[in-house]
């Protein structure tokens, strides 16, 4: 049984790193090099969030995971919006798992 102390402790050590930069960075101007660096962050963040983790998205089924990701990617290529790709990817994975069995 975890006690509330554990949860409180986890909450504290999770919140502090999230909060500190907001407090420390307020009221400073940023050098242009840093701004350029910031502009690249979205792309590198998305790349690193997807790769290699997606392989394990469906445990033990890398190809099913990739099929799900590809479904989302293809839809996102032709249409805007994020919800359809998310739902379709989950649906694709579900169907493949049913089809492949267990």
């Amino acid at each position: 049984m975890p006690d509330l102390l554990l949860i409180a402790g986890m909450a504290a050590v999770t919140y502090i790193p999230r909060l500190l930069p907001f407090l420390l960075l307020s009221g400073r101007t940023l050098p242009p090099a840093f701004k350029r660096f910031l502009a690249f962050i979205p792309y590198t963040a998305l790349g690193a969030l997807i790769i290699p983790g997606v392989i394990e998205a469906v445990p033990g089924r890398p190809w099913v995971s990739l099929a799900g990701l590809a479904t989302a990617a293809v839809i996102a290529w032709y249409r805007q919006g994020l919800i359809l790709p998310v739902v379709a990817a989950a649906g694709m994975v579900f169907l493949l798992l049913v089809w492949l069995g267990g």
Partner: protein
Amino acid sequence: MNAKNRAGQKGEKTACSVGQNRQEVREGIRRGLPVLIGYFSASIPFGLLAKAGGISLLETFLFSALVFAGASQFMALNLLQAGVVAGEIILATFLVNSRHLVMSTVLAARLRENSLEKVEEEAEKTREVVRSGRPGPEGPEPGRLEPGRPETGRLKPERPGPGTGSGKLLTFLAAFGVTDESFALAVTRKKRLTPLFLLALEVTAYSGWLTGTITGFLLGAALPAEARASMGIALYAMFAAILIPELKKSRPALFLAVGAGVFHTLLERLQLFSAGWNLILAIVLTAIAGSYFYGRKKEE
């Protein structure tokens, strides 16, 4: 999306910041909807596993409500099962979640960014668009819920400082909601980041996390195995759907994303750092390499 039209027409007359605030909140919620779906799916297994591990509904809920960090919550369940003591679980949680330090730094910088010149630039673009009566040079931007041009023009005059409604409280709340996903959605916003937008996005995501946790606890066992297994893809699908439109527009984006992914894979193989820091190192170092490379290219 017809939101932009509505926003553009409405905005003109609404006296200043109330209308803007509402607009920011609305856009934040829209931006957060896919995360809500993703989080709902991703947290169902958490509720399910917590219940299987003999944790009460209240405690399960508190995990999600107070910690709100997926990876570390699943990890805590594993460690509890293995009989690891609370102190060590907390330490491990800190190691996993300290990566948010970097994400918060980036977000704080984006909030802070006194982008007067950028806003000015976009306002000029808007005027041009209005004059020529057609959409901007790139057309509507796919994957982004707010193309941003109609509003920025009217945002400009009243907003020289770092954002409307930026109270201390707002910052404290917004800091709580920083996750990999809210971070990814916030930094890919082309318009200026405001605390209200960020908070609305996060609250939307948070509600998905909480409802999913409870649903998983109460109903998870009733789901077929295939349905449970298919939920893990949701957040990756979302990341891909954010990334694809960017890749269509720029080649550097492709190199940066793939580069970061390859680097991340390498770091995971090497196992020198914790998983959370592998992610951060991949993001930050690839961005530094990119800004060095592309920055120099531009100067030539």
